[in-house]
Protein backbone atom coordinates (compact mmCIF):
# COMPACT_ATOMS: atom_id res chain seq x y z
CA UNK A 1 0.00 0.00 0.00
CA UNK A 2 1.63 3.19 -1.18
CA UNK A 3 -0.91 5.50 0.42
CA UNK A 4 -2.21 5.62 3.97
CA UNK A 5 -5.49 3.73 4.32
CA UNK A 6 -7.87 6.75 4.35
CA UNK A 7 -6.35 8.12 1.15
CA UNK A 8 -6.35 4.74 -0.54
CA UNK A 9 -10.00 4.37 0.40
CA UNK A 10 -10.88 7.77 -1.06
CA UNK A 11 -9.00 6.93 -4.27
CA UNK A 12 -10.98 3.72 -4.43
CA UNK A 13 -14.28 5.58 -4.00
CA UNK A 14 -13.43 8.20 -6.64
CA UNK A 15 -12.35 5.60 -9.16
CA UNK A 16 -15.80 4.00 -8.95
CA UNK A 17 -17.32 7.17 -10.42
CA UNK A 18 -18.09 7.17 -14.14
CA UNK A 19 -15.35 8.54 -16.34
CA UNK A 20 -12.76 8.61 -13.56
CA UNK A 21 -9.68 6.47 -14.02
CA UNK A 22 -7.11 5.58 -11.36
CA UNK A 23 -4.89 8.56 -12.18
CA UNK A 24 -7.72 11.09 -11.92
CA UNK A 25 -8.96 9.42 -8.74
CA UNK A 26 -5.51 9.82 -7.20
CA UNK A 27 -5.32 13.47 -8.24
CA UNK A 28 -8.76 14.19 -6.76
CA UNK A 29 -7.97 12.40 -3.51
CA UNK A 30 -4.71 14.32 -3.05
CA UNK A 31 -6.62 17.50 -3.79
CA UNK A 32 -9.01 16.68 -0.96
CA UNK A 33 -6.04 16.17 1.36
CA UNK A 34 -4.95 19.75 0.64
CA UNK A 35 -8.46 21.19 1.07
CA UNK A 36 -9.47 23.24 4.13
CA UNK A 37 -11.48 21.05 6.49
CA UNK A 38 -14.68 23.12 6.00
CA UNK A 39 -14.56 22.58 2.27
CA UNK A 40 -14.17 18.83 2.64
CA UNK A 41 -16.99 18.87 5.18
CA UNK A 42 -19.20 20.79 2.76
CA UNK A 43 -18.41 18.31 -0.04
CA UNK A 44 -19.26 15.37 2.19
CA UNK A 45 -22.52 17.01 3.29
CA UNK A 46 -23.48 17.81 -0.28
CA UNK A 47 -23.02 14.16 -1.21
CA UNK A 48 -25.18 12.94 1.63
CA UNK A 49 -27.81 15.65 1.11
CA UNK A 50 -28.32 14.50 -2.47
CA UNK A 51 -28.99 11.01 -1.25
CA UNK A 52 -31.23 12.13 1.61
CA UNK A 53 -33.26 14.83 -0.04
CA UNK A 54 -33.47 14.01 -3.74
CA UNK A 55 -36.25 11.69 -4.79
CA UNK A 56 -37.96 10.78 -8.03
CA UNK A 57 -41.20 12.56 -8.86
CA UNK A 58 -43.93 9.95 -8.65
CA UNK A 59 -45.63 11.42 -11.72
CA UNK A 60 -42.90 12.23 -14.24
CA UNK A 61 -39.88 10.43 -12.79
CA UNK A 62 -37.70 13.53 -12.73
CA UNK A 63 -35.35 14.02 -9.80
CA UNK A 64 -36.78 16.49 -7.34
CA UNK A 65 -36.82 17.62 -3.74
CA UNK A 66 -40.62 17.71 -3.60
CA UNK A 67 -43.04 15.14 -4.91
CA UNK A 68 -44.77 15.92 -7.28
CA UNK A 69 -42.06 18.05 -8.79
CA UNK A 70 -42.12 21.74 -9.68
CA UNK A 71 -42.98 21.06 -13.33
CA UNK A 72 -45.80 18.61 -12.63
CA UNK A 73 -47.45 21.07 -10.24
CA UNK A 74 -46.96 24.18 -12.38
CA UNK A 75 -50.46 25.41 -13.45
CA UNK A 76 -48.87 27.47 -16.23
CA UNK A 77 -47.81 24.41 -18.19
CA UNK A 78 -49.80 22.73 -20.91
CA UNK A 79 -51.07 19.30 -19.82
CA UNK A 80 -52.04 18.37 -23.39
CA UNK A 81 -48.47 17.78 -24.50
CA UNK A 82 -46.08 15.33 -22.93
CA UNK A 83 -42.40 15.04 -23.74
CA UNK A 84 -40.68 11.69 -23.18
CA UNK A 85 -36.96 11.85 -22.39
CA UNK A 86 -34.36 9.31 -21.31
CA UNK A 87 -32.70 11.04 -18.36
CA UNK A 88 -33.19 14.05 -16.08
CA UNK A 89 -30.29 15.75 -17.87
CA UNK A 90 -32.28 15.57 -21.11
CA UNK A 91 -35.20 17.27 -19.38
CA UNK A 92 -32.85 20.01 -18.26
CA UNK A 93 -31.60 20.38 -21.84
CA UNK A 94 -35.19 20.71 -23.10
CA UNK A 95 -36.00 23.26 -20.38
CA UNK A 96 -33.00 25.35 -21.39
CA UNK A 97 -34.55 25.89 -24.81
CA UNK A 98 -37.56 27.61 -23.15
CA UNK A 99 -39.51 26.38 -26.17
CA UNK A 100 -41.37 23.57 -24.50
CA UNK A 101 -44.17 24.35 -22.04
CA UNK A 102 -45.75 20.94 -21.66
CA UNK A 103 -45.14 18.16 -19.17
CA UNK A 104 -42.42 15.50 -19.12
CA UNK A 105 -41.98 11.81 -18.64
CA UNK A 106 -38.50 10.64 -17.68
CA UNK A 107 -37.82 7.01 -18.59
CA UNK A 108 -34.62 6.59 -16.61
CA UNK A 109 -32.67 5.26 -19.58
CA UNK A 110 -33.12 3.74 -23.00
CA UNK A 111 -33.80 0.29 -24.36
CA UNK A 112 -30.52 -1.47 -25.06
CA UNK A 113 -31.00 -5.09 -26.08
CA UNK A 114 -27.23 -5.67 -26.14
CA UNK A 115 -26.87 -4.51 -22.55
CA UNK A 116 -29.94 -6.42 -21.47
CA UNK A 117 -31.96 -3.27 -20.77
CA UNK A 118 -35.52 -3.97 -21.85
CA UNK A 119 -38.77 -1.99 -21.69
CA UNK A 120 -39.50 -3.33 -18.20
CA UNK A 121 -36.35 -1.71 -16.86
CA UNK A 122 -37.64 1.73 -17.83
CA UNK A 123 -40.56 3.84 -16.60
CA UNK A 124 -42.60 2.89 -19.65
CA UNK A 125 -45.32 1.13 -17.68
CA UNK A 126 -45.84 4.36 -15.71
CA UNK A 127 -46.39 6.21 -18.98
CA UNK A 128 -49.63 4.54 -20.09
CA UNK A 129 -51.70 5.42 -16.98
CA UNK A 130 -50.76 9.05 -17.55
CA UNK A 131 -52.30 8.89 -21.00
CA UNK A 132 -55.50 7.16 -19.91
CA UNK A 133 -57.40 10.28 -18.86
CA UNK A 134 -57.44 11.65 -22.40
CA UNK A 135 -55.96 14.96 -21.31
CA UNK A 136 -52.73 14.36 -23.21
CA UNK A 137 -53.23 15.04 -26.93
CA UNK A 138 -49.64 14.69 -28.13
CA UNK A 139 -46.61 12.76 -26.97
CA UNK A 140 -43.24 14.07 -28.15
CA UNK A 141 -40.57 11.38 -28.18
CA UNK A 142 -37.30 13.14 -27.38
CA UNK A 143 -35.07 10.14 -26.79
CA UNK A 144 -31.51 10.30 -28.08
CA UNK A 145 -30.55 10.13 -31.77
CA UNK A 146 -28.64 6.87 -31.28
CA UNK A 147 -29.69 3.26 -31.77
CA UNK A 148 -30.92 2.94 -28.16
CA UNK A 149 -32.90 6.16 -28.43
CA UNK A 150 -34.49 5.05 -31.71
CA UNK A 151 -35.36 1.64 -30.28
CA UNK A 152 -36.96 3.31 -27.27
CA UNK A 153 -38.92 5.75 -29.41
CA UNK A 154 -40.18 2.98 -31.69
CA UNK A 155 -41.22 0.89 -28.72
CA UNK A 156 -42.97 3.80 -27.01
CA UNK A 157 -44.75 4.69 -30.26
CA UNK A 158 -45.98 1.13 -30.50
CA UNK A 159 -47.49 1.41 -27.01
CA UNK A 160 -49.03 4.85 -27.46
CA UNK A 161 -50.40 4.82 -31.00
CA UNK A 162 -53.23 2.36 -30.28
CA UNK A 163 -54.57 4.91 -27.78
CA UNK A 164 -55.23 7.30 -30.65
CA UNK A 165 -52.87 9.93 -29.30
CA UNK A 166 -50.66 11.89 -31.68
CA UNK A 167 -47.07 10.68 -31.41
CA UNK A 168 -44.21 12.82 -32.72
CA UNK A 169 -40.46 12.36 -32.75
CA UNK A 170 -38.10 15.31 -32.44
CA UNK A 171 -36.28 15.99 -35.70
CA UNK A 172 -32.59 15.26 -36.00
CA UNK A 173 -31.07 18.53 -37.01
CA UNK A 174 -27.73 19.84 -38.12
CA UNK A 175 -25.34 21.53 -35.74
CA UNK A 176 -25.77 25.30 -35.82
CA UNK A 177 -22.86 27.09 -37.44
CA UNK A 178 -21.45 24.01 -39.14
CA UNK A 179 -20.69 23.37 -42.78
CA UNK A 180 -22.93 20.97 -44.65
CA UNK A 181 -20.00 19.12 -46.17
CA UNK A 182 -18.63 18.48 -42.71
CA UNK A 183 -21.79 16.71 -41.54
CA UNK A 184 -21.90 12.92 -41.83
CA UNK A 185 -24.33 11.41 -44.34
CA UNK A 186 -26.57 9.87 -41.67
CA UNK A 187 -27.23 13.17 -39.94
CA UNK A 188 -27.74 14.91 -43.26
CA UNK A 189 -30.17 12.25 -44.50
CA UNK A 190 -32.19 12.52 -41.30
CA UNK A 191 -32.21 16.28 -41.42
CA UNK A 192 -33.56 16.02 -44.96
CA UNK A 193 -36.29 13.67 -43.75
CA UNK A 194 -37.30 16.16 -41.10
CA UNK A 195 -37.35 19.17 -43.46
CA UNK A 196 -40.14 21.73 -43.23
CA UNK A 197 -41.65 24.47 -45.34
CA UNK A 198 -40.37 27.99 -44.87
Amino acid at each position, binding site marked *: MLYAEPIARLIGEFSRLPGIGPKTAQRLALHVVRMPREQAQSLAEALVAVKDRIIHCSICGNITENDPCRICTDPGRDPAILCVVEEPKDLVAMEKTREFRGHYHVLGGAIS*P*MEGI*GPDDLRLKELLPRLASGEVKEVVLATGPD*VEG*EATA*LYAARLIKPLGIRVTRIAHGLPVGGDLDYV*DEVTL*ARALEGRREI
Partner: protein
Amino acid sequence: MSLYSAEALVLRARPLGEADVVVTLLTREEGKVEAVARGARRGRSRLLAATQPFTESRVMIWRGRNMDSLSQAEVVHSFRGLQQELTRLACASYTAELLDHFLGEREPHPALYELWRETLHYLSRAEGRTPLLKGVHVFELRLMRILGYEPEISRCAACGGELGATLRFSLGLGGALCPQCFSRDPGASPVSAGTLALLQRLADTAWDRLHVVELGPWAPEVQRLLWAFIAFRREGTLKTREFMELVCGAPEEGVNNK
Protein backbone atom coordinates in the same frame (compact mmCIF):
# COMPACT_ATOMS: atom_id res chain seq x y z
CA MET B 1 2.25 2.05 -32.38
CA SER B 2 1.20 1.49 -35.94
CA LEU B 3 -1.66 2.60 -38.11
CA TYR B 4 -3.78 0.21 -40.10
CA SER B 5 -6.86 0.56 -42.27
CA ALA B 6 -9.82 -1.74 -42.25
CA GLU B 7 -13.38 -2.21 -43.36
CA ALA B 8 -15.46 -2.34 -40.23
CA LEU B 9 -18.97 -2.98 -39.01
CA VAL B 10 -19.91 -1.85 -35.50
CA LEU B 11 -20.93 -4.74 -33.25
CA ARG B 12 -21.49 -2.64 -30.16
CA ALA B 13 -20.64 0.70 -28.65
CA ARG B 14 -20.49 1.92 -25.09
CA PRO B 15 -19.72 5.38 -23.76
CA LEU B 16 -16.45 5.94 -21.95
CA GLY B 17 -16.02 8.99 -19.77
CA GLU B 18 -17.38 12.31 -20.91
CA ALA B 19 -16.74 12.23 -24.61
CA ASP B 20 -15.30 8.90 -25.72
CA VAL B 21 -16.87 5.75 -27.07
CA VAL B 22 -15.50 2.23 -26.95
CA VAL B 23 -16.54 0.38 -30.07
CA THR B 24 -16.36 -3.31 -30.75
CA LEU B 25 -15.79 -3.64 -34.47
CA LEU B 26 -16.01 -6.57 -36.78
CA THR B 27 -13.31 -5.85 -39.33
CA ARG B 28 -12.75 -7.76 -42.51
CA GLU B 29 -8.99 -7.68 -42.04
CA GLU B 30 -8.46 -8.27 -38.31
CA GLY B 31 -11.66 -9.89 -37.08
CA LYS B 32 -13.17 -8.56 -33.87
CA VAL B 33 -11.35 -5.50 -32.57
CA GLU B 34 -12.06 -3.18 -29.68
CA ALA B 35 -11.09 0.44 -30.17
CA VAL B 36 -11.67 3.72 -28.41
CA ALA B 37 -13.06 6.58 -30.45
CA ARG B 38 -11.77 9.62 -28.62
CA GLY B 39 -14.04 12.61 -28.54
CA ALA B 40 -16.67 10.76 -30.56
CA ARG B 41 -19.51 12.02 -28.40
CA ARG B 42 -18.65 15.66 -28.89
CA GLY B 43 -21.31 17.06 -31.21
CA ARG B 44 -19.11 17.82 -34.18
CA SER B 45 -17.04 14.66 -34.18
CA ARG B 46 -16.93 12.86 -37.50
CA LEU B 47 -16.35 9.66 -35.59
CA LEU B 48 -19.80 9.77 -33.99
CA ALA B 49 -21.81 8.40 -36.91
CA ALA B 50 -19.21 5.72 -37.50
CA THR B 51 -19.56 4.45 -33.94
CA GLN B 52 -23.29 3.72 -34.17
CA PRO B 53 -24.04 0.00 -34.02
CA PHE B 54 -24.35 -1.77 -37.42
CA THR B 55 -22.71 1.09 -39.31
CA GLU B 56 -20.21 0.07 -41.96
CA SER B 57 -17.17 2.29 -42.28
CA ARG B 58 -13.74 2.48 -43.71
CA VAL B 59 -11.57 3.12 -40.68
CA MET B 60 -8.00 3.92 -39.76
CA ILE B 61 -6.97 2.46 -36.42
CA TRP B 62 -3.95 3.11 -34.27
CA ARG B 63 -2.73 -0.07 -32.69
CA GLY B 64 -1.98 0.92 -29.12
CA ARG B 65 -0.17 -0.90 -26.36
CA ASN B 66 -3.29 -1.35 -24.26
CA MET B 67 -6.10 -0.46 -26.58
CA ASP B 68 -6.50 0.47 -30.20
CA SER B 69 -7.94 3.83 -31.09
CA LEU B 70 -10.04 4.88 -33.99
CA SER B 71 -8.30 7.71 -35.78
CA GLN B 72 -10.47 8.18 -38.87
CA ALA B 73 -13.72 6.77 -40.09
CA GLU B 74 -15.78 7.25 -43.20
CA VAL B 75 -19.28 5.85 -43.21
CA VAL B 76 -19.89 3.52 -46.14
CA HIS B 77 -23.35 2.32 -45.21
CA SER B 78 -25.50 3.13 -42.21
CA PHE B 79 -28.30 0.56 -42.74
CA ARG B 80 -30.84 3.20 -41.81
CA GLY B 81 -33.69 0.82 -42.52
CA LEU B 82 -32.83 -0.98 -39.30
CA GLN B 83 -33.78 2.05 -37.26
CA GLN B 84 -37.13 2.46 -38.95
CA GLU B 85 -38.66 -0.73 -37.59
CA LEU B 86 -38.33 -2.06 -34.07
CA THR B 87 -38.47 -5.65 -35.30
CA ARG B 88 -35.55 -5.10 -37.68
CA LEU B 89 -33.53 -3.45 -34.96
CA ALA B 90 -34.24 -6.29 -32.56
CA CYS B 91 -33.16 -8.95 -35.08
CA ALA B 92 -30.02 -7.03 -36.05
CA SER B 93 -29.10 -6.65 -32.38
CA TYR B 94 -29.43 -10.37 -31.94
CA THR B 95 -27.10 -11.09 -34.87
CA ALA B 96 -24.58 -8.64 -33.41
CA GLU B 97 -24.67 -10.28 -30.01
CA LEU B 98 -24.36 -13.72 -31.53
CA LEU B 99 -21.21 -12.66 -33.39
CA ASP B 100 -19.77 -11.02 -30.31
CA HIS B 101 -20.60 -14.17 -28.36
CA PHE B 102 -18.84 -16.56 -30.73
CA LEU B 103 -15.83 -14.55 -31.85
CA GLY B 104 -12.61 -14.10 -29.96
CA GLU B 105 -10.58 -10.97 -30.54
CA ARG B 106 -8.47 -10.77 -33.68
CA GLU B 107 -9.55 -13.96 -35.36
CA PRO B 108 -9.93 -12.79 -38.93
CA HIS B 109 -12.92 -14.29 -40.75
CA PRO B 110 -13.50 -12.35 -43.97
CA ALA B 111 -16.42 -14.67 -44.75
CA LEU B 112 -18.12 -13.71 -41.48
CA TYR B 113 -17.70 -10.05 -42.29
CA GLU B 114 -19.35 -10.65 -45.63
CA LEU B 115 -22.11 -12.72 -44.01
CA TRP B 116 -22.99 -10.06 -41.47
CA ARG B 117 -22.92 -7.30 -44.05
CA GLU B 118 -25.32 -9.26 -46.26
CA THR B 119 -27.49 -10.06 -43.25
CA LEU B 120 -27.74 -6.39 -42.27
CA HIS B 121 -28.61 -5.49 -45.85
CA TYR B 122 -31.35 -8.07 -45.83
CA LEU B 123 -32.71 -7.21 -42.37
CA SER B 124 -32.72 -3.48 -43.06
CA ARG B 125 -35.18 -4.05 -45.91
CA ALA B 126 -37.18 -7.04 -44.70
CA GLU B 127 -40.88 -6.37 -44.19
CA GLY B 128 -42.71 -8.34 -41.53
CA ARG B 129 -41.97 -10.97 -38.98
CA THR B 130 -41.55 -14.05 -41.16
CA PRO B 131 -38.96 -12.61 -43.57
CA LEU B 132 -37.02 -11.27 -40.59
CA LEU B 133 -37.08 -14.62 -38.84
CA LYS B 134 -35.85 -16.31 -42.02
CA GLY B 135 -32.97 -13.86 -42.21
CA VAL B 136 -32.05 -14.56 -38.60
CA HIS B 137 -32.02 -18.32 -39.16
CA VAL B 138 -29.97 -18.03 -42.33
CA PHE B 139 -27.47 -15.97 -40.40
CA GLU B 140 -27.37 -18.52 -37.57
CA LEU B 141 -26.82 -21.43 -39.94
CA ARG B 142 -24.14 -19.74 -42.00
CA LEU B 143 -22.38 -18.45 -38.90
CA MET B 144 -22.18 -22.05 -37.66
CA ARG B 145 -20.94 -23.17 -41.06
CA ILE B 146 -18.16 -20.59 -41.20
CA LEU B 147 -17.06 -21.38 -37.65
CA GLY B 148 -17.02 -25.09 -38.49
CA TYR B 149 -20.01 -26.06 -36.35
CA GLU B 150 -22.39 -26.64 -39.20
CA PRO B 151 -25.03 -29.17 -38.17
CA GLU B 152 -25.03 -32.32 -40.30
CA ILE B 153 -28.51 -32.47 -41.78
CA SER B 154 -28.14 -34.28 -45.08
CA ARG B 155 -26.77 -37.59 -43.77
CA CYS B 156 -26.29 -39.35 -40.44
CA ALA B 157 -23.95 -37.39 -38.20
CA ALA B 158 -22.65 -40.61 -36.59
CA CYS B 159 -22.18 -43.12 -39.44
CA GLY B 160 -22.51 -40.94 -42.50
CA GLY B 161 -25.25 -43.20 -43.84
CA GLU B 162 -28.57 -42.31 -45.42
CA LEU B 163 -31.16 -40.81 -43.16
CA GLY B 164 -34.36 -42.80 -42.78
CA ALA B 165 -37.91 -41.63 -42.31
CA THR B 166 -37.61 -41.62 -38.51
CA LEU B 167 -35.11 -39.08 -37.36
CA ARG B 168 -33.45 -37.78 -34.29
CA PHE B 169 -31.18 -34.82 -33.78
CA SER B 170 -28.11 -35.10 -31.58
CA LEU B 171 -26.58 -31.92 -30.20
CA GLY B 172 -23.48 -33.78 -29.05
CA LEU B 173 -22.85 -35.53 -32.38
CA GLY B 174 -23.74 -32.35 -34.24
CA GLY B 175 -26.58 -33.41 -36.47
CA ALA B 176 -29.27 -35.83 -37.52
CA LEU B 177 -29.06 -39.55 -36.74
CA CYS B 178 -30.26 -42.58 -38.69
CA PRO B 179 -32.28 -45.19 -36.73
CA GLN B 180 -29.23 -47.52 -36.47
CA CYS B 181 -27.33 -44.78 -34.62
CA PHE B 182 -30.06 -43.65 -32.19
CA SER B 183 -28.24 -45.57 -29.45
CA ARG B 184 -25.10 -43.47 -29.95
CA ASP B 185 -26.83 -40.56 -28.22
CA PRO B 186 -29.75 -41.46 -25.96
CA GLY B 187 -30.31 -37.73 -25.43
CA ALA B 188 -31.02 -37.11 -29.11
CA SER B 189 -34.51 -35.74 -29.66
CA PRO B 190 -36.97 -36.58 -32.42
CA VAL B 191 -36.97 -34.19 -35.33
CA SER B 192 -39.17 -34.06 -38.39
CA ALA B 193 -37.89 -34.52 -41.93
CA GLY B 194 -39.62 -31.26 -42.86
CA THR B 195 -37.52 -29.37 -40.32
CA LEU B 196 -34.28 -30.81 -41.65
CA ALA B 197 -35.31 -30.04 -45.22
CA LEU B 198 -36.14 -26.48 -44.25
CA LEU B 199 -32.78 -26.06 -42.48
CA GLN B 200 -31.07 -27.28 -45.64
CA ARG B 201 -32.98 -24.82 -47.80
CA LEU B 202 -32.27 -21.94 -45.45
CA ALA B 203 -28.58 -22.79 -45.44
CA ASP B 204 -28.37 -23.00 -49.22
CA THR B 205 -30.71 -20.35 -50.58
CA ALA B 206 -29.22 -17.05 -51.71
CA TRP B 207 -30.42 -13.90 -49.92
CA ASP B 208 -32.27 -12.60 -52.96
CA ARG B 209 -34.11 -15.91 -53.38
CA LEU B 210 -35.06 -16.28 -49.72
CA HIS B 211 -38.61 -15.08 -50.35
CA VAL B 212 -39.39 -18.37 -52.09
CA VAL B 213 -38.55 -20.39 -48.97
CA GLU B 214 -41.61 -20.93 -46.80
CA LEU B 215 -41.18 -21.57 -43.10
CA GLY B 216 -44.52 -23.30 -42.83
CA PRO B 217 -45.38 -25.48 -39.83
CA TRP B 218 -41.71 -26.24 -39.15
CA ALA B 219 -40.80 -22.72 -38.05
CA PRO B 220 -41.09 -23.39 -34.29
CA GLU B 221 -39.06 -26.60 -34.49
CA VAL B 222 -36.38 -24.98 -36.66
CA GLN B 223 -36.09 -22.19 -34.11
CA ARG B 224 -35.95 -24.54 -31.11
CA LEU B 225 -33.38 -26.74 -32.77
CA LEU B 226 -31.13 -23.90 -33.86
CA TRP B 227 -31.25 -22.23 -30.47
CA ALA B 228 -30.50 -25.49 -28.69
CA PHE B 229 -27.63 -26.05 -31.11
CA ILE B 230 -26.21 -22.58 -30.50
CA ALA B 231 -26.53 -22.95 -26.73
CA PHE B 232 -24.75 -26.30 -26.92
CA ARG B 233 -21.86 -24.81 -28.88
CA ARG B 234 -21.38 -21.78 -26.69
CA GLU B 235 -22.75 -21.40 -23.20
CA GLY B 236 -24.18 -18.18 -21.90
CA THR B 237 -27.36 -16.25 -22.29
CA LEU B 238 -28.02 -14.01 -25.23
CA LYS B 239 -29.68 -10.89 -23.86
CA THR B 240 -30.96 -9.74 -27.21
CA ARG B 241 -32.95 -12.92 -27.80
CA GLU B 242 -35.49 -12.02 -25.14
CA PHE B 243 -36.01 -8.61 -26.70
CA MET B 244 -36.29 -10.10 -30.18
CA GLU B 245 -38.96 -12.49 -28.92
CA LEU B 246 -40.78 -9.70 -27.11
CA VAL B 247 -40.83 -7.49 -30.17
CA CYS B 248 -41.25 -10.04 -32.97
CA GLY B 249 -42.72 -12.95 -31.07
CA ALA B 250 -46.31 -12.06 -30.43
CA PRO B 251 -48.37 -12.81 -33.52
CA GLU B 252 -49.91 -9.47 -34.37
CA GLU B 253 -52.88 -8.41 -36.42
CA GLY B 254 -52.33 -10.51 -39.50
CA VAL B 255 -49.03 -12.27 -40.00
CA ASN B 256 -46.67 -10.79 -42.58
CA ASN B 257 -47.86 -7.39 -41.47
CA LYS B 258 -45.47 -4.53 -41.48
